[in-house]
């Protein structure tokens, strides 16, 4: 039997973290939670995850910054990162777009609102 994979869920919306975590735990993943980029760094150093589900727009350190730091780090560059991008085309007053999610060093991305079944597919594909 394969070892259980560790996943870190990072978002400043506690309800989103909880709902994603519940789904992942139901699929037998081991889940850690963090609520901004700095807290996530501490969790990563404490217990290196196999995959990170990472929100973009967060206080203190946003998802792009954390993603770039991890992917430029020799120690952590192999961790799979799935970005959550929240901003729809209808929103014009922000610089965040879905395309930004694609052009970072992240391994994959999924738009909000999250389709949990699609997220599970992405997680499985990236952890195989």
């Amino acid at each position, binding site marked *: 039997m394969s070892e259980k994979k560790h996943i870190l869920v990072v978002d400043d919306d*506690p309800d989103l973290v909880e709902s994603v975590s519940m789904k992942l735990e139901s699929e037998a993943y081991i889940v850690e939670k963090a609520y901004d980029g700095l807290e996530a760094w501490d969790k990563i150093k404490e217990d290196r995850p196999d995959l990170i589900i990472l929100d973009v727009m967060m206080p203190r350190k946003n998802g792009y910054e954390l993603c770039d730091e991890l992917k430029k780090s020799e120690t952590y560059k192999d961790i799979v990162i799935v970005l959550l991008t929240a901003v729809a085309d209808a929103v014009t007053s922000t610089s965040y777009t879905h395309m930004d999610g694609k052009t970072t060093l992240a391994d994959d991305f999924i738009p909000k609102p999250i389709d949990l079944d699609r997220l599970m597919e992405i997680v499985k594909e990236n952890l195989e």
Partner: protein
Amino acid sequence: MEKKIRVNGIKMSGELIQVNLMQPDDPKDLNALFLKSAAENRINLTFLSCTALGMQRQMSYCVPSADFERLKTILAFDPDLKKNAALIASVGCISIFPHAFSLKFIGLLTHVFHTARLPLYGIATSLSVVTLTTDFRQIDTAVTSLCAHLKLPSNHAPFATKAPEIRIERI
């Protein structure tokens, strides 16, 4: 010695105005009217909750204090809205997570507010968060009083954060 309850974080809102809207026993849906007017006037709802007792129902809407003038315009627009709405100026929301579906936790929060003689204008839970509304001028006292009973992670996110604001300019 009392054991502290472990939580992952606390969030404080900025200054808000709370609108308590009673739904009278007539077919006119005041909540639909209020929500339509709020959307048309591009007023964000920071927090909303519903209190129901039998057939009586009250919705509570918290909106940023910066939207006060637009809020007054909405309420003045319809006599029934004006008659059934009560405003509480200068409130703040404190959100604590996760509540872990613990009644003891909810009891602790209300006990802390009672002991510190803090007003509690509303309380509601979502999937993982419990949110309380109180007087904005006393929000720091409320958080300090709560923290005496809660254990937070060493590097938790700051309580008061300026989240990136998104205002949809076209719908």
